[in-house]
Structure formats: C-alpha cells, structure tokens
C-alpha cells in the first residue's frame, strides 16, 4: 500500500462537479504529476486532499490513517506540506523566520517558558535555528537568512516557499504550479531542485504543473484530468500519445 492513497474522492460545489471519482497514490520518494487544461480540477484535487475543502465523497489515507475531513493544520501535522500557486510567503518576516515557522510545532517549552526565557527555551531556540540554517544551506538560501522575504528575487521566493514546507517535516510535498511565472533558465534550475529535494529528503512529491516540458522531464507517473474526470494515467510517453489527452488539449500536445 502506498504512503498516500486517495480513493474515489469527489468534490461537488452546488450543481458543479469539480472532481469526480479521483483516485491516486504516491509512495515515499516518488515524483508524480497531475496535469490538465485550465479548469480541469487540478487545484480542487489539491485542496480536497490538503484540507482546504472537505471532499463530498471518498476517502484519503496517509500511511493507513484516514485524513479526509481533517483541518489543514491537522493534515499538515500528519505529514503533508504544500506550496501555493501564487507564492504565499510571510513577506514581512526574514527568510530565516519563514523557515523557523515550520519548526514551530515541535517546540515543547510552552508559552511560560518563552516569557521567563527558560533554559529549555534557549536550548530549543538554538537547536531550531541550527536546523533552519542547515535547511537553508541545503537549498542554497543561507546567504539570504537575514533578508526580508519580500526582497528575495522571484525564483528564490519559490525556493524559500519549498524550504518552509520542508521545515514542517512532511512525508508528502505538494507543489502547486511551482514553475508559474518563471523564465526558461529558472525552470531548468527548478527541475534540478525538485529532483534534488526528492533524493535528499526522500519525500514523495506531487506536482501540479502547466508546463508540459517540466512535467514530462520530471514525473515518473502522470495523471491527466479534464472536467473533473481522470482521462489518462501513465508514464510521460503513454500520456503524451493518448488520444483523449490530445483531444483535451485541443490537439496541442505542447501548449
């Protein structure tokens, strides 16, 4: 059984069925993609799994434990972290603070400990700071640690958002259109980064992307959605040759 199993979830908004009988599985260290034209239900699938929406039907299991219907916070604690299509960093905080947030829930000093500055507080602060700096270093962001997050260049903001998600210690990392708004050079760097993260942290990565070249280059398995229906599942080659997929993209295999 895979680490994350999504079984026949459906998402209905009034009369609109945004997602129907969507099934999916990711294992540790896997890199899988979810593609489809605009309005196909990709982000809906993401939101239904990460707890922004509660699926109207079906269930999700992470390591055998049901997680559908839990809140975003509980799902994050269970081990699924995500990034956003439009970058949502804490712009007024420093780069280091953005990553430190991810370590937040593992602190045990409590509020009183923070007010009286207990030895445990000081110990944990140093420990988390070290871990956060190590993480920033791994993602080559350490020289920006004291910068305000909003002053980072665009590509590095993406990188920081991924670092922040990794800091929560996820088993599954969900990336929502990470290449959106990037130039070709940045996209090449991103491809390398995603592969590096998978190898370095051993997380399962679930990728939503519009950029076909990126998805085809990266993902071992691809699911194609159209109008909420799953129209194809397979490797890059299989999906590319699928007539249904070509039809969905109006005969344009490369957008």
């Amino acid at each position, binding site marked *: 059984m895979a680490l994350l199993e999504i079984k026949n979830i459906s998402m209905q908004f009034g009369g609109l069925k945004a997602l129907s009988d969507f099934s999916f599985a990711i294992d540790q260290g896997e890199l899988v993609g979810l593609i489809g034209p605009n309005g196909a239900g990709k982000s809906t699938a993401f939101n239904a799994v*990460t707890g*922004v929406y509660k699926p109207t039907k079906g269930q999700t299991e992470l390591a055998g434990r049901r997680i559908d219907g839990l*809140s*975003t*916070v509980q799902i*994050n*604690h269970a081990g699924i*972290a*995500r990034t*956003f299509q439009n970058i*949502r*960093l*804490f*712009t*007024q*905080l420093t780069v280091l*603070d953005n990553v*430190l*947030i*991810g*370590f*937040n*829930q593992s*602190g045990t000093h409590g*509020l009183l400990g*923070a*007010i*009286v*500055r207990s030895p445990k*507080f000081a110990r944990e602060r140093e420990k*988390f700071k070290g871990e956060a700096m190590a993480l920033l270093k791994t993602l*080559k962001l350490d*020289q*920006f640690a*004291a*910068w*305000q997050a*909003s*002053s980072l*260049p665009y590509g*590095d903001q993406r990188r920081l958002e991924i670092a*922040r*998600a990794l*800091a*929560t210690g996820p088993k599954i990392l969900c990336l929502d259109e990470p290449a959106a708004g990037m130039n070709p050079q940045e996209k090449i760097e991103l491809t390398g980064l995603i592969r590096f993260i998978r190898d370095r942290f051993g997380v399962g990565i679930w990728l939503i992307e519009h950029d076909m070249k990126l998805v085809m280059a990266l993902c071992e398995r691809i699911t194609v959605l159209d109008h909420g229906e799953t129209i194809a599942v397979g490797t890059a080659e299989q999906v590319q040759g699928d007539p249904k997929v070509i039809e969905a993209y109006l005969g344009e295999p490369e957008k």
Partner: protein
Amino acid sequence: MSVAGGQLPLETPVRRHLSAPLVANWWVPLAVVLVVALAPWVEGGRGLLGMGGWDKFWAQIAIVVGINLTLAMSLQLINGIAGQFSLGHAGFMAVGAYIGGYAVPTHGGKLGAEDEMVAWVHPGGVLLYVVALGVVTVATAGVVFGLYKLVGLLGRVHKRGPAVVFGVLLAWLVVDIVTKGKSAGSNPLGAIAALGWGSAAVTGSFDWIMLRGVGAAEWVSGVTPAGYRQPACLVVSLLGGGVMAAMAGLVVGLPTLRLRGDYLAIATLGVSELIRTTITNSGPLGRATGLSVPTYSVDAEAGVSAVYFFPWVYGVAILTILVVWRIQHSPKGRALQCLREDEIAAGAVGIDVTAHKVLAFVIGAGLAGMGGALFAHYIGYINPKQFDLTKSIELVVMVTLGGLGSVPGTIVATVLLSLFQPALQTANQWMPAWAPGWATSGAELLNKYRLVIYSLLLIVAILVRSRGWLSFGRGKKA
C-alpha cells in the same frame, strides 16, 4: 543570487538590537519584583524613587502614563502583533476595573476594625471572593460547553438529534413564558425555569464557597504581616481583575475569532458594549451612577497617594512590556505575526490559527484587566462611561501611531499622547517667564484642536507609515 555578491549588510546594529531579547536574563523581572516588594518599607515610596519634590499634578500624570502603557501594550499584542483588529479593549479593562473595584471595598475590610484603612486590611477576603468568582465562572462555562458538546454528540446518533433537542427547549421556553410569564410581571425572562435553575445553582455554589472559605481567608490575612496587608489586597485585586478579564477574552475569543477584519472589529465592539451595558444594569456595581473604589494611599491628607502608587503602576507596565516583547520574540509570537500576514499560509505550515488568535486575546485581555484594576484603584471612582468606545479608540490610536507590531514605538507613542493633553491644558502654568506670549496661546489653540490633530496623524500614519513612525528599519512596505 541575482544581487552582486549575494551579501547585503542586513545585520545592522539597529536590526540586531531589535531582534535581540529585551533582557536575556532575569534582572529586569527581578528588579520589578524588588521595587514592588520594598515599596511599603520606604516611607510613602518617595525616598525610594527620589520624587519628594514632585508635585501632585505631575505624579498623577505619570500614573496615567503608566496605566496607558499597560493598556496600549496589551492591545498591541492583539491588534499589532497578531493583526486582529479589536475595538473592544475598554471592555476587558472594565472587567478588571469592576472586579478589583468591587472586591476590595466589599470583602477587604472585615479583619480588624481598629485599622483606619478599613478596605485594605483583609487580603484573604478579597482572595476568597475572587477565587469563588473564578471557580463558579469556570464551572458554569464548563457545564454550558459540556451541554453544547452533548447536543453535538446527539448529531452522531441521529442527524436531526440536535435540532430536536433545540426544538424541545424552545417549546419549553414558549410554554413557560406563556404560562408563568404573565403572573411573573413585566419581565418574561424572569419566569424561564431553566434560567432560574441555572442562576440558583450559580449563586448557590458561589455562596457555598464563600461560606466555607471564611476560615481560610482569615487565616491568610492573619499570617500576612500587617504592613503587607494593603499591598497583598492590591496584588489580589490586580490578579483577580486580570484573570477574570482573560476569561472574558476567552469567552469572547472562541465564538468571534472566526471573523476577520471589519467583522471582527464590529464583533469586539459589540462585546465591549455588552459588558458595559451589563454593568450599567447591575445594581451591586452601581449602575450608571458608578462605584466608589478605595484608592491606594497611606496618607490621603498629604495628597501624595499618586506617588505611593507609582511603583505598582510601573511594575505592571514593565511586566506587560516584557511579556508582550518576549511573546513577540518567541515561536508563538512568530506564529502570531504569520496570522497577521497570511492566515491561509499559516494554516498550511501547521499553525493552529484559532488557537493562536484565542491566545492573543486571552493574554491581551488579561493584561488589560490588570490595567483596569490599577485604573480603578488610582481614580477612586469608576462608571461605565469611562469604558466606552472613546477609550478603545484612544488605545487604538496609541497602538497605530506607535506602529503595528512595534513594541518600542508603542511605548513612545503612548507616553507622548498621554502627556500631550495635560501638557497643553496647563501650558500657562509651566511655561517659563521668558517664553513669548504666543507660545502659551499657541498651546491653548493646539489643545482646542487636539482631536483633529489626532485624527490627521492617524490618517497620515496609516497612509504613509503603516508600521509606525518609530519602526526603525521595519517600515519597508511589503
């Protein structure tokens, strides 16, 4: 990486100073405690603080500044750091003021009648009252919450379970009002049996605790050395006011914190008005007429009670500043700042949004309650009018001018704004003889248009420097 060299000198001295904890050790809290503990030993508090030459007027202004520091700083935690715009801070202040202001005169004077300061001699009595009130409040809230959960559980048994329960309750209420309401007179609510049982249980258990605790209360007062009975009464009054206000913050917080922005502001305003209206209609609390509160003074005749109160006010103010600063510079505070910036992202990185909002409200309200109790014991007379929207807005102005999220800025803004009015009003008294005539008349003119100036400052501050005038190095817009 796109910047040449990739290294910008962002570790400036100011920045380093700001991100360092206010005091990395125990010295400041220890000093505060020492000042407060030693105050009764030093005659009138004057010798200790070297304020023998201070006249009454300026000492009183200094007290007002200190109380405003506590109130504004506690609001900074809610409005500035956590970014939850609250317009109801005066309500929490009122809770603290009325708890302290009611408990001390009614329960603080039963030990020995030989002492002339009758209200301040029985700390055990005040403690008993506050504890009883707290226990009953917690128990009541627990029962109500338990019933609410129970009805919710019914929903699992059958989908329409909760609806049926509420239907039955509603029918019972209607029948009750119709059958007994007429005979009960003009107030149909008085006839509602469930409410009647509830209030009987609450007052009954309250009286039970008060009766059983008399012995313990007298023992507590007995072991307190005579010189420390008055300060002990004050400490209990402050803590009691703070804890009850924190509970009010919790009760307010849980249901209203799903709201954001304007809606939250309206809801908090509504709650503070609710608190005010409840006080206005409560007989024991003096209704709209108000309540006389014993001031904290040893020699009222000499008129230096304000000086004697000084270390207490500043002890609490420094404590508040320290607590707010240290929360801001801890993981919890970082989480609060994330709420301010982006709630959706905060949820996605595992920050429990509701829990953190409630935390900010509970602590902010608790500290405001202590400020309220200080205010009551300083001013000597409280009425509901003192805790209306004007007071809340005054505090919001202090926090906003100081800068949302800036603790040092709030201190400066609060001190300046608190000094502004009395300084301008008394310009003809303190203006030196050599000052030209237009200086005094100018000050009078400024005083006349004080509120206009406040408003203009506020508008300009929000437009130009939303992080405050004094937010060194942090004023950068996102």
